[in-house]
């Protein structure tokens, strides 16, 4: 503790009841010194941002929680270049507030953006409904400052949107759940804030009845910004966000397409794009399932008809990402997960297990797994960063 206090001031080193210490460094150099110390003494470290996704990839019990809360500044926003540099502990909401002063944004609708931080979002590769139009998080990051487990400070990428110099470690680190490095800064490419968003929803008892329209929309020229399917025991909703100049009359085109399938779009509040959060806040087991786009509706309906008595609520993105809440007895939930995993067309991650649900968080193909393990060993030879996440015992 004293050694940690010598790095970050005493007031920023706090002992918890469970024996773990939380330390909040002020800058990248202090992060480096803490990791070097932890490496030397083989102390395990869990980087922590807003703490909204600590269960993702498996729960850890580290010696040190490394909080990035004090690294919370937007360092620069050269808006004419449509880029920004921000520290990892900045909340997504604070970042967006800052960028909106120049009518720009980082094109991702993150979960719990008022608490979730840049570093945590990057590490967990979160992505929401905007991905339909703007691509995945890894396509929005253009550079990072990283600290390795031995304290090495490294930068990758750069500040320009186009850059192929060297390996793109930002991609490797995005989604690595704090097991490879600690991110202290990130550079993003930005987009102008959408000007003409309008949200519509179409309801049907089952997703299957919405599937032909969804396929039509995907194959059309309609300028959709987001395409989402919500499914629960009470029915199915297809949500469409259009973002185009009013004179392009995209809503009329949508209505026309819907009519051919006997459906009627209703204009609705943009709050539907935050429905995803209700999945996570519930006292449920939360899964993230990936499928091909053509299986989105099928899976959503299947989740309502599982053999077990587990209840499912799902919010799916049309590109094939499903956030699913399962409620029910631990056995029922586990058996539903096993069934879903038995179908090779699904990739199932358990992001948040309910008490008593003990299923591996990820299933990684063995051939790629051993390569990933050697990457992990080369970055973190003593295994101090989030041990147990992704690979048990790595």
């Amino acid at each position, binding site marked *: 503790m004293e050694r940690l206090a010598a790095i970050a001031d005493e007031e920023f080193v706090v002992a918890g009841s469970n024996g773990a210490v939380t330390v909040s460094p002020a800058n*990248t150099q202090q992060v480096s010194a803490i990791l070097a110390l932890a490496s030397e003494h083989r102390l395990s470290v869990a980087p922590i941002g807003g703490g909204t996704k600590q269960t993702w990839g498996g729960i850890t019990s580290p010696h040190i929680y490394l909080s990035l809360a004090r690294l919370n500044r937007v360092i620069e926003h*050269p808006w*004419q*270049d*449509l880029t920004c*540099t921000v520290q990892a502990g900045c909340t997504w909401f604070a970042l967006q507030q800052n960028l909106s002063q120049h*009518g720009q944004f980082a094109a991702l609708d993150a979960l719990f953006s008022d608490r979730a931080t840049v570093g945590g979002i990057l590490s967990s*590769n979160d*992505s929401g409904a905007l991905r339909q139009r703007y691509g995945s998080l890894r*396509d929005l990051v253009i*550079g990072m400052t*990283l600290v390795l487990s031995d304290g090495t400070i*490294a*930068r*990758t990428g*750069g*500040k*320009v*949107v*186009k*850059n*192929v*110099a*060297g*390996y*793109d*470690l930002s*991609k*490797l680190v995005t*989604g*690595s759940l704090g097991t490879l490095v600690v991110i202290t*800064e990130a550079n993003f490419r930005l987009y*102008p804030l959408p*000007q003409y968003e309008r949200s519509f929803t179409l309801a049907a008892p089952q997703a299957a009845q919405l599937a032909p329209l969804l*396929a039509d929309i*995907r194959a*059309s*020229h309609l300028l959709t910004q987001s395409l989402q399917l919500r499914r629960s025991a009470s029915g199915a909703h297809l949500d469409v966000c259009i973002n*185009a*100049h009013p004179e*392009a009359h995209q809503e009329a085109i949508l209505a026309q397409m819907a009519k051919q399938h006997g459906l009627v779009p209703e204009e609705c509040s943009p709050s539907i794009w935050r429905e995803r959060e209700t999945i996570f806040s519930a006292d449920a087991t939360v899964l*993230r399932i*990936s*499928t*091909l*786009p*053509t299986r989105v509706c099928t899976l959503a309906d299947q989740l309502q008809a599982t053999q077990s008595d587990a209840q499912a609520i799902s919010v799916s993105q049309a*590109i094939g*990402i499903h956030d699913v809440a399962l409620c029910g007895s631990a056995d029922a939930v586990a058996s539903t997960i096993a069934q879903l995993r038995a179908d090779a067309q699904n*990739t199932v991650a358990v992001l948040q297990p309910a008490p008593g649900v003990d299923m591996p968080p990820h299933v*990684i193909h063995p051939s*790629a*797994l051993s*390569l*990933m393990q*050697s*990457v992990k*060993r*080369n970055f973190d030879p003593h295994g101090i960063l989030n041990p147990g996440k*992704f690979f048990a015992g790595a």
Partner: protein
Amino acid sequence: MSSSLTTAVLSELRRIVGDRGLITAANQLQTYECDGLTAFRVPPAAVLLPESTSQVQSILRLCHRERIPFVARGAGTGLSGGALPAEGSIVIALSRMNRILNIDIPNQQITVQPGVINANVTAAVAAQGYFYAPDPSSQTVCSIGGNVAENAGGAHCLKYGFTVTHVLEMTVVLPDGDVVTLGSKTPDAPGYDLAGVFIGSEGTLGVATEMTLRIMRKPETVQVILAAFDTISAAAQSVSDVIASGQLPAAMEIMDRLSIEAAEISVHPNYPACEALLLIELDGPQAEVDLQMAAVIDICKKNGAWETRLAVDEQARFLVWKGRKAAFAAAGRLSPNYIVQDGVIPRTSLPAVLEKLNAMAAAENLRVTNVFHAGDGNLHPIVLYNRDNPGEEERAIDLSLRILDVCVEAGGSITGEHGVGREKQCSMSYMFSDPDIETMQRVRHAFDPLDLANPEKLFPTPRICGERSRGAYAPHPLEASGIAEVF
């Protein structure tokens, strides 16, 4: 030249790929001794032309056992010496693995072998109304495998993103012969994004033998405007103003006077004679494109464009783009030899950087012409020279590398799409500090602990950079200033 490989190894290689798949005759090896960067040449020990993933696997197992370095090769159009053979290496040319394996329109995916030519991907899905977005100017000749290795870009990447955005899944043979699947056809494969780091790794992490690509719906309407300006700065200002107005065109390109002249001589696009030509392409629904185009034309005129030409139908657009896409080749009309450079700068520093480049060229008494992807700040300065003038080639190479230093100093990058390869590996230490580069090496060694895959590329090595007179080992300019100010 006799091969440095033993007879036993050669016969084993022959057993893997057959007589037709092995090249050892010196005159045939010549074809493979360089890529598009012809100033660098090394003859390979042998060239192999595998036809399947399992043949590539057998070749790499053998290379691993015998510690033979290997260099993958697509179409050899690379401009940074990426496919340049290493001393004593074999070349694995993927030109015979050129089949399209599967087209899945409902899921908007296509699976191809690495030797498929970029333009053939779009050709395979065009009838159904789809296209493959990354469009390097070399798209009618370069291969998807080479595009993946270089993370190739193109004019339309401003809106649609680079190769990495469009590759979903890959089959890769690792340097020890293991075959792995990186990425997945469904979003976000579990575990580390190794596909993301493999793309753009310039053949240093293994050989990609199959890839599933994302295809996109062709836009409803496409319009291109050509605007003529008296100064590059005015054209560049128009680009900034378009971005500031909240629009994201599909492409924004600038050509300077020399490159306009060269294009005119070689493909006759009938461009207006001017100091700077700005090309802006918009796509989307008709009504929206019409409105945006009116705003774009307005911006150009405000910045002094004295001629604007709108190309709407396919043929008119083709002609407009033909001149731009032929720009590198057309440089041959201006000068017997030239080097195409590939720096990136923050878009806003364009006028200042160009002024500096012109002064540097004048001081060397060399001509430099510029074409660039202005929307994303990617410059392609083309240094013109004549190899027959003693010392001129060295001065041209030196100037082209110093241009990169200027880009780094402006907060940019030494390469936007052509890769580091052999050409720019010493410039890496100008852009990155030692710890940055050592961190990349940790990835390299997880994939390739023996340094067999395209060795002595991308990373600065004492052997190669030590020979350089320009002092690539000068301390990193940012090292001194402390890490707080990341570049």
